[in-house]
């Protein structure tokens, strides 16, 4: 959410913080409840880098309150705002360059330009925003109804609702009859598809239907209202129809990696915050009743801070953290014997969690892996065809894809695909984390820190892989690898600056390597062959370099 910046909305102690990036120094200041940044440049500016001019700038807005907080500066040019190139990581309690919070290619400079918030971010980070970007000059008279995501975003406009309900007789007639009030939309009372679209208006990969619609949006904002059947001026991108849709073809012409940066090759969404694309492709959705609100609620139950904090993590209904989310419809699996027969795992194990097998962690965002919202079955064939890690190998990190294929054949009679040699002999997680693109590497680095995977696959063999991943070209992958390494015994307090210069990164990796050497047993161990480790626990170098040569180095952002 976007909030007006002030000492009451900033997520940390702001005053006096000093930051530096690419030859510019930033001093954060508070003054009578307002926030400012003093910028000075210590070297000539790179004209390619969008950097704010030296001087004192007021921070006027913040975005984010759960994981990261971003800051926006006034430019003194109408309502155009610019981004402070640093974000605050709330859980880690540290400042970091903004670009290091996204999965961005190393050569990518600052991601956001002046006015980017007005042109794009505010579309979904405010309620009923109107960019009002001038076509003829670099001026923006941006307006919003409210900065946060407020009532109107999900319940449609409230003017009529408020005026009609000033009549108490009308209100009590509704209370006592139980009939819905037709002056307002309640997503709970909409069918599954319309209810999901309320969330999907932002939580989807969408685009404008045409230039006319984009211009209308620019002046009036969204004409979609909760309860409508479509997004009005916009459409939800379906990668499977990209060839047929001239608008999508046009986007791809401008950005050849548009689809592959957002979707797995079979069309499943791979970035977070766009869960609607996954939901609509789920078999559950076809029934017409299933919606985002089957599991999520936008209003916290309970009043104390603990309950609200628990709810704000994914905004799930309290009872929806376990299998109850699925047994609402698939009631047969409330029976322990039936569940175990289906999952072939103990009922209380992570292998019997509906989520873990049917909504595995295959989407990326916010410096972590997030559950896929396209309900699906684990499939070795899909992993082979798309490169998307399957649920089995995200937990059984030490197993090969061939092993998964054999198991799925035995348990669920899935056909065994033709498996290449590496996928028969090397653990799938290792192949993805070495050969995969940056998105796959991020997912696997995260999985190596995921407790259920650590418990079933062991952690002794993951040290060298995580330490190696801390040298990844992508800052975000380095961050995740370091965080996972800290979840391993002996590395809980290991510091590493994932945004440092390359030489400092290598120093940190050497330090981690030496620490690991001092921690591990001197005795030689026979690691299973799929782990690609020699008897000392080191990665077999020849194999590592052979696989690195096959890495998918496509820029991912």
């Amino acid at each position, binding site marked *: 959410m976007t909030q007006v910046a002030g000492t009451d909305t900033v997520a940390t102690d702001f005053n006096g913080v000093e930051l530096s990036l690419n030859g510019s120094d930033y001093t954060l200041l508070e003054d009578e409840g307002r926030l400012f940044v003093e910028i000075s440049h210590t070297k000539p500016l790179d004209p390619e880098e969008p950097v704010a001019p030296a001087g004192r700038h007021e921070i006027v807005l913040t975005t984010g309150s759960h994981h990261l907080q971003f800051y926006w500066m006034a430019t003194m040019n109408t309502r155009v705002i610019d981004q402070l190139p640093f974000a605050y990581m709330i859980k880690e309690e540290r400042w970091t360059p903004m670009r290091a919070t996204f999965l961005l290619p190393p050569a990518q400079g600052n991601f956001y330009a002046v006015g980017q918030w007005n042109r794009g971010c505010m579309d979904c980070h405010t309620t009923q925003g109107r960019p009002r970007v001038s076509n003829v000059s670099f001026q923006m008279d941006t307006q919003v109804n409210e900065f946060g995501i407020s009532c109107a975003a999900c319940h449609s406009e409230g003017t009529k609702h408020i005026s009609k309900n000033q009549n*108490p007789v009308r*209100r*009590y007639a509704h209370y006592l009859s139980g009939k819905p009030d037709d002056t307002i939309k309640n997503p709970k009372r909409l069918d599954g598809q319309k209810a999901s679209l309320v969330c999907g208006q932002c939580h989807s990969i969408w685009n404008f239907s045409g230039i006319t619609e984009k211009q209308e949006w620019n002046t009036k904002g969204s004409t979609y209202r909760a309860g409508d059947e479509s997004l009005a001026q916009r459409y939800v991108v379906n990668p499977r129809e990209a060839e047929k849709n001239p608008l999508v073809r046009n986007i791809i012409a401008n950005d050849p990696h548009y689809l592959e940066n957002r979707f797995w090759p079979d069309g499943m969404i791979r970035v977070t915050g766009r869960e609607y694309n996954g939901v609509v492709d789920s078999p559950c959705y076809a029934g017409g009743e299933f919606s985002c609100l089957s599991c999520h609620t936008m*209003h916290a139950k309970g*009043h104390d801070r603990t309950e609200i904090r628990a709810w704000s993590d994914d905004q799930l209904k309290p009872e929806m953290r376990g299998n109850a989310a699925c047994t609402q419809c698939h009631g047969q699996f409330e029976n322990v014997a039936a569940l175990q027969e289906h999952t072939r795992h103990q009922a209380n194990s992570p292998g019997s969690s509906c989520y873990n097998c049917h909504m595995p962690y295959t989407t990326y965002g916010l410096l972590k892996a997030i559950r896929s919202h396209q309900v699906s079955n684990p499939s070795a064939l899909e992993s082979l065809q798309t490169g998307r890690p399957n649920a089995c190998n995200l937990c059984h990190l030490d197993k090969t894809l061939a092993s998964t294929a054999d198991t799925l054949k035995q348990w669920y009679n899935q056909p065994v695909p033709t498996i290449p040699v590496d996928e028969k002999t090397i653990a799938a997680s290792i192949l993805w984390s070495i050969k995969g693109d940056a998105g796959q590497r991020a997912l696997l680095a995260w999985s190596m820190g995921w407790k259920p995977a650590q418990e079933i696959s062991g952690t002794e063999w993951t040290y060298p892989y995580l330490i190696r991943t801390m040298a990844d070209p992508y800052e975000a992958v380095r961050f995740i690898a370091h965080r996972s390494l800290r979840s391993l015994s002996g590395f809980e307090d290991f510091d590493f600056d994932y945004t440092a210069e390359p030489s400092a990164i290598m120093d940190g990796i050497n330090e981690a390597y030496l620490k690991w050497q001092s921690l591990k047993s001197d005795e030689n161990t026979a690691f299973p062959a799929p782990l690609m480790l020699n008897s000392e626990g080191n990665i077999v170098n020849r194999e590592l370099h052979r696989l690195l040569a096959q890495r998918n180095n496509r820029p991912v952002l």
Partner: protein
Amino acid sequence: MPDKTLSSLTRRHLRFGWWSLFAFLTLGVVLEALHGLKLGWYLDVSNETRRLMFTLAHTHGTLFAIVNIIYGLTIRELSSLNARPYMSSCLIWGAMLLPGGFLLGGLVVYGGDPSLGILFVPVGAIVMLIATFSIAKAVNTTSRR
């Protein structure tokens, strides 16, 4: 009005006032206990209306109990007061209906609105206004003993 009747009225209002005071102070203690126990039924954000209704019931009930005690003492103090029976009835009914309406209104709430028990509140308020106006007028025309 004969002394015996006046004395009876005094006793009536003192008796009602003190018992009412006891009842609504007890309600206050119960409300504080609900805070202490952090009961969602009373403290949840969605139950703000209930909290407001119960608080209003407590404060009005306590205030009107004291008003009844004061009226009892007023009758004793001003022997020539033209204390008509309807004044007494209005004062007692007002002291029951108004806080009672808040209490009933808060037992069930519909979003930001109380239940229909709230309808007792305007009735109680009118009755209480009649009582206080009549008593003020009567006091105004009374010569001091």
